[in-house]
C-alpha cells in the first residue's frame, strides 16, 4: 500500500492505495469521480485525460502514486460553482459532443490547449487534440467549440483589461 496526499479539484485528499493502483481507478473508484472515462486502456483514445499540475496525462496509464504531492484536475473540477467553464459551455452551444463518453477527455485537453495557447489556429487545435478520439462528431464541431471558447475567453480577458 502507498499513501497518496494530493489535491484533487482543489480539495486535499489522503488515501491509502495498492502500489499498482492506476490514476483512473483512484479517481473513479477511490474518489467516486466517475466523470473521467476509460476507453481503450492503452493511452490511445484520450477519454481518460486529466490534468496533473496543469499538464495533460492519460490517467489509464499513470500510476496513482504519480498524483502524490501534486494537483489533479478532472472534468468535475473546472466549472466555478455552477458556472460552466467556457470550454464546457462552448461544447454544448457548438455541438462539440454527441454521446458524451469522450467529452470529459476532450474538454480537459481543450482546456489545457487554451491555457497554453489562448488563440490557437485550426492547425494548432488539430495538432494538440489528435490524441483524443471521438466516434460521433467527426471532430468538426469539436474544432468549432474550441475556436468559440478561445474567442470567448479572449473577449472576456479583453473586457477584464478594459480593452473591449
Amino acid at each position, binding site marked *: 500500500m502507498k499513501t497518496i496526499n494530493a489535491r484533487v479539484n482543489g480539495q486535499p485528499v489522503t488515501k491509502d492505495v495498492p502500489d499498482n493502483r492506476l490514476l483512473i481507478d483512484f479517481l473513479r473508484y477511490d474518489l467516486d469521480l466517475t466523470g473521467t472515462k476509460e476507453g481503450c486502456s492503452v493511452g490511445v483514445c484520450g477519454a481518460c485525460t486529466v490534468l496533473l499540475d496543469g499538464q495533460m496525462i492519460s490517467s489509464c496509464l499513470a500510476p496513482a502514486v504519480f498524483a502524490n504531492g501534486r494537483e489533479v484536475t478532472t472534468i468535475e473540477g473546472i466549472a466555478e460553482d455552477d458556472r460552466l467553464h467556457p470550454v464546457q459551455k462552448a461544447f454544448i452551444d457548438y455541438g462539440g459532443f*454527441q454521446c458524451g463518453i469522450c467529452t470529459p477527455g476532450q474538454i480537459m485537453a481543450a482546456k489545457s490547449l487554451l491555457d497554453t495557447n489562448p488563440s490557437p489556429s485550426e492547425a494548432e487545435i488539430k495538432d494538440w487534440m489528435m490524441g483524443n478520439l471521438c466516434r460521433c462528431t467527426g471532430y468538426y464541431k469539436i474544432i468549432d467549440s474550441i475556436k468559440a471558447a478561445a474567442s470567448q475567453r479572449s473577449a472576456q480577458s479583453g473586457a477584464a483589461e478594459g480593452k473591449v
Partner: protein
Amino acid sequence: MASLLNIGRPAGHVEGPEKVTGRAKYSADINLPGMLWGKCVRSPFPHARIVSIDTTRARVLLGVHAVITAADIPDVLIGRNIVDMPVLARDVVRFTGEKVIAVAAESADIAEEAVALIDIGYEELPAVFDPIEAMEEGAPRVHADTSRYKYAPIPPFFHGDNQILPPIPNVASRVLESHGDVQAGFAEADRIFEHTFYTPNVHQGFIEPHACVIDIPSDGSVDVWTSNKGPFAARSQFAEAVGLSAEQVRLNAAAIGGDFGGKGDLMDSVVAYHLAKSSGRPVKMVMTYAEELTAGNPRHAALITIRSGVTNDGRPTARQAKIIFNSGAYAAFKPLHTIHGSVHAGGPYRVDNVEIECLVVYTNNVPCGHMRSPGGPQVVFALESHLDIIAHELGIDPLEFRLRNALQEGDVAPLGERYHNILCRETLQAAADAAGWGSDKEPWVGRGIAMYERPAGGGSSSATLTVDANGRFSMLAAIPDTGTGSYTILQQIVAEELQVPLESISVHHGGTAIMPPDWGVGASRVSHTAGKAAAMVAREVREALVQAAARELNCQPEQVRWQNGNFVADTGASISLAELLKQAERIGELPITRSATYTSPGNYEEEITSYTAQIAEVEVDPETGQVKLRKIYSAHDAGTVLNPLTHQGQIDGGVVQGLGQALIEHLQIEDGVVSTAHLGDYKLPSITDIPELETVLIETPSGPTPYGGKAIGELSNVAVPAAIANAVYDATGVRFMELPITADKVYEALQASDNAS
C-alpha cells in the same frame, strides 16, 4: 416554416450540462454497495471441445465470490432474433474469445487474477473461417444442428416462389428478393458486366466498451444498467434467458457512450446475472477494449458479386447480386435473420429486373452484429464501384451515367417500392454542382461519386409528459438517446406543440419499469416514431390544460385558444399558464401527466424515402501511395431539418466513419484471431484525418417525422467509401475491389501498373 419558434433552429443538447461536467452516469459509472466485478475466461481456440475444467485455484483466491461454468447455469441460449448463443460455452467453443467461465471478485484486479488461475483443457476441432469454404460439402460444421434454434428459419432459405433449395452447409439464412424477370433483362442487354468486391470486418468504434451492472433485490426481481439502445427488446430477451417474467426485470436509465448499431445486444448481462445470483452481491462487468475488438459484435465482412446488363447508351436492363456475409460463430447479435442492407444492391436507379441473393454464413470467427445501416456500406461500395466501372467501359461520364438512370417521380424502385416525392436526381445534381463536377483537376487528383437511399424506420415509441406548478414540463422517453441529440429534438417538438420556452422542458430516459413499450433506437426511426410520440403527448397535455382553462374562464374547451402563454376565451377573458397552474395546484389537480404511444402504419415505408449523394475529391501521392482526402461534398434530401446543429452532427460523424471504412479501418482476423486487438492497432480516424466538408441540404417538409423531417443518421456514412474508391480510380486509373484503400495497397498497385506499362 417561418412561423415555427423552435423547429429548424439550432439547439444544443438538452443533456449538455450533465455530459460536459462528468455528471452523466453511463453503465460503467454505476457503483453499488457491496458490488463485485465480473470477468470471463475466454477461449483461445476458434473451434474446440472443452475436455476438462479446473477452477479450484480460482475458487480459493481471497476476494473471489463466485466462479461459474456452463454446468452451473441453466442450459439456455440467447439471441436478438435467432437464439443460438450459449451464455457460457457448453462442451464446445466456436470462436476465439468465446466466454467459457465467469468469476466475480471484490475488485477487477482480483477477478483478473482468478481468471488466470483457471485451467481449461481443450481438444481442437477443425475450424472454418472463410464463408465460401464453409458452404462447401465436407466443411467443418460450426453448429451441428441449427434447426433446434428458436427463430432460426427452417429451412434457412426464403425464396420468392417457395422453391425448395438444396441445403448448404453452415448457412444461417438465405434470402432471395426479386422483381421483374432478370433472365429476360439480361437477354435485352448489349453488354453484361460482373465484378466481385470484398469489404472486411469493421468495429463500431464507440469509445464506451459494453458495460453492465446487475442487482438482484430480495424479491427476486432484477435491476439492470447496461449500454443497450433497445431496452424493451433487451428486457424480454434477458427475462427469457434467466427464466423471469419481463415485469420482474427492470432496465434502468443509463447514458450510452456511442452505439452506431452495436449496442443492441445483451453482451455480458446474463453472465453478470448468474454471477450476482451465485454470489448474492451486485455485479459489474465492463469489457476491456481488447475484448470489444476481439469478442464484441463488429460489422460483417462481405463478399459481393454484382452482375448488370446494360444497353450501349447506358440503360440497365437487369441486375443480379449475390451477397455473402460472414456471420461469425453465432447469429445471436443480429436482430433479423438476414442483413437488411442487401436490398440496396438495386440502388436508387431505374432497373426493371432485379434478383438479390443474401447469404449469412456461420464461420469460426467473432460473431458479427449491426453497424450503422447494416449491410449498406458493404453493398453500396460494391454497387457504386460496379456502376463506375460500367460507366467508364461505356465511355459515359460517371455523373451522367447516374443522372440518366436516377429514379424520378413516378418511377418504381428496383425491388418494386413505390415512393413519392423522389428527389434522387436533384440530390445527385446538388452534389455535382457543389463539387464543380467536370471542372479541371491537377494530376493525381480525382473525384468520385456515389449515392444511397433509405427510408426512416417505423415502429412504436412511447413518452410521458408532466407539468408541475412551476410550469416545468418533464418528459420521459422510453427510447434512449444514444448521443444523436434525439432528446433535444423531442424537447423542440414539445416546445413547438405547447408554445413554451425550450428551457422549460426537460427530457430524460424512463426505464422499462415505468414506461410503456418502445422499439428502441434503430433503422433511423427515432425522430420519426419518438418524435410522433412526443407530439402526441404534448397535444394531450395541452388538451388537459385547455380543459382546466375553460373551467377557470367559465366556457367550453373549444372556446379557448392558447396563445403567447395565455389561454384566451372567445369572450376575451384570459388566464396565463402560470396562473392556471397555480389554481390547478390549489385544487389538487397537479401534476398533470399524460402518456402516449405512437405506432407507425405498416406501409408508410413504401411512400417516403430519402436520398444522399457523396462526392469525394482525393489527391494521391504517387511516391507513397497515400490517399489524401481533400474534400467531401455531401448532399442530402433532408426533409425539414428539425435541428441544424444535431442534423449536421449526424452528417459530420457519418462522413468521418465512412472515410475510416474507406481508407483506414480493418478489423484483421487471422485464423479466427483478431490481431488488431487494441485501438493502437485498430485505427479510428483522428482529428488530423478529416477532410474539408461541404454539405448541401435539399429541404422539403415531406418526411415522416413531425414537421416533415427525414432520416439522416444512417444515410451520411454509407456512400462515402464508394465515393472515395471511385475518386482514387479517377486519380490513378487503379480500381480497388477491396476496402480499406491503404497507402501500401495503392503504392503496390501503382508499381504494378507502372511495370505493366
